[in-house]
């Protein structure tokens, strides 16, 4: 029986901008089971990234219930959240966000510096992650020496190197050409299919959405019913 990874009930997020209040999310209910590949779609400003950030513990809801992997993420302190993210969440950004002064190998190794793994064990994990994304021959390259597609694959390797349960991807193909985007989506599909990773991906791209097992639409901060 599949385990519930994300359980959201009546979740809202209101941003305060000067004297204005903007409701980014309104009364969201969502449940995500282990091993699902959820695609969140919707127009710009619909609240997709906000929802993703809240689930990943990067942002906090204004009200509502949020349990991720059985934990009440919204109530955790910043430090506890950081440790929780390190163990349970991998995050892939649209703009890759690699550290420019570190090589591909070092970028992937970064999250492991917070673990108690030995240097040898860390090396094993990093090489395995880079091999999985097909970049084992680029380990000493700096981000500026890689193509956009390769950078995003390094970012995916960094996201999975701690073997997290939940993988979040915010427009992972938004800055890529069609070929590179397809490579990245293939990797995410493989991670979901072969490694049973639960994935939440935000995208505008209907072709990207086809790789997901579930697609949900957001509009003006509201989650539309399944199949809408």
């Amino acid at each position, binding site marked *: 029986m599949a385990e519930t990874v994300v359980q959201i009930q009546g979740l809202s997020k209101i941003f305060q901008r000067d004297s204005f209040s903007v409701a980014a999310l309104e009364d969201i209910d969502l449940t995500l089971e282990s091993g699902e590949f959820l695609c969140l779609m919707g127009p710009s400003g619909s609240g997709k990234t*906000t929802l993703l950030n809240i689930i990943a513990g990067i942002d906090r809801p204004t009200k509502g219930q949020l349990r991720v992997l059985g934990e009440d993420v919204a109530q955790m302190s*910043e430090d506890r959240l950081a440790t929780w*993210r390190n163990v349970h969440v991998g995050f892939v*950004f649209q703009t890759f*966000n690699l550290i420019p002064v570190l090589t591909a190998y*070092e970028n992937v190794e*970064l999250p492991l*510096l*917070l673990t108690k793994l030995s240097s040898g064990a860390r090396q094993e994990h990093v090489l395995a992650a880079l091999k999985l994304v097909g970049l084992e021959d680029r380990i000493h390259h700096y981000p500026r020496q890689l193509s956009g597609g390769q950078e995003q694959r390094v970012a995916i390797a960094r996201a999975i190197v701690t073997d997290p349960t939940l993988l979040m991807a915010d427009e992972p193909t938004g800055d890529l050409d069609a070929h590179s985007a397809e490579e990245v989506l293939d990797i995410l599909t493989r991670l979901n299919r072969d490694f049973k990773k639960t994935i939440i991906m935000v995208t505008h791209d209907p072709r990207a959405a086809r790789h997901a097992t579930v697609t949900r639409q957001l509009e003006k901060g509201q989650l539309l019913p399944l199949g809408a």
Partner: protein
Amino acid sequence: MTRSHLIVKNLFRNRRRTILTTGSLAVSMFLFTVFIATYRYLSAPTETEATRRTLLVMPRASTSVPLPLSYRQRIARLKGVAMVSPFVTIDGMYGGTDEWLAGFATDPEVLLKLYSGLWRIPPDQRQAFIAEKTGLIVGRKLAEKHGWKLGDHIPLRNEGWHVTLDLVLRAIYTGEVDETFIGVHWQYLSEVWHQSDVAGAYLVIAESDQAAAALGKTIDDTFHNEPMETRTMTMLQFALDFLGRLGNVKRILLMISGAVLFAILLVLANTMAMSIRERTSEFAILRVLGFRTGQIQGILAAESLTIALVGTALACAVAFGLFRLISGYRVGGWMPIDIHLDLPGLGLVLAVALATSFFSTFVPAYRVSRVKIADAVRFVG
């Protein structure tokens, strides 16, 4: 990779900026180190046997009025006095040049005693200098500069003297001291100046440190209520008295040190603020990856501390070199310049480096850790 590796990588992400910042910090810390060491030296100059045992007897009322020559015998009879001699500082121009030469005029035996252990003089030259009233002793450097040889006549003039001294070079000293100093017989000066019954001041060499400590009061008591009262002090006291008149110099040194400190703080704070601001999104990524804000602040503090300590180490190395270079120099040929950075001074310099590092990083590091991750990820510095 380790966290220290990460710190080094971050430091060298903008190599030119890091080098320039470290360089300017090193220059500022060098100035601060020199000022602090000089301030400490001025507060407590180096003590030697010569500065402890040698006393200077001067007129109490005014140094422009000479003491009677009759005081010489009265001082010589006091208990604890080993030697006594009239004493005058001289400065005159050599021959037709406008180069000033400076030195002392005393009895030759007292002069040589004063510099025993500091000047190396061949015995025959020593005797020749003592024996001839117009004899002159000069440092090796001065003799080499003018190509003087033993037996040369050296004319020395000063508008205030109304006469040109005709001195004969009889001895050349060497030593780890100022080698541009000159010594002449007081007797010769008193004759050409037609001042056979007065002496500017007296130089007294005590038999021991203990004797010197008591002798000052004894001499002054001896001439109490005389037409010319005296003011006696050891050379060390004289130096301290002289330095005391430089009180403003010490205050200026402190003020400049404060300004230098402020400049150091601004330089490092500016660099750290720029460096942190332009990496705002990277710190957000680190937080997404699981780094706690305290760990990120620790990395930033380590970066700043590395720059501060490398700059300070460079500054101290150059300052130590400078102190070593001038350590042989003696003011007036006898008062040693021994500026050095002692442990409390070094502790102060290190504390300043640590404080500068802390204060330059604290605010920008705190601010960057307060930015919401979601906003910081999109930040373009």
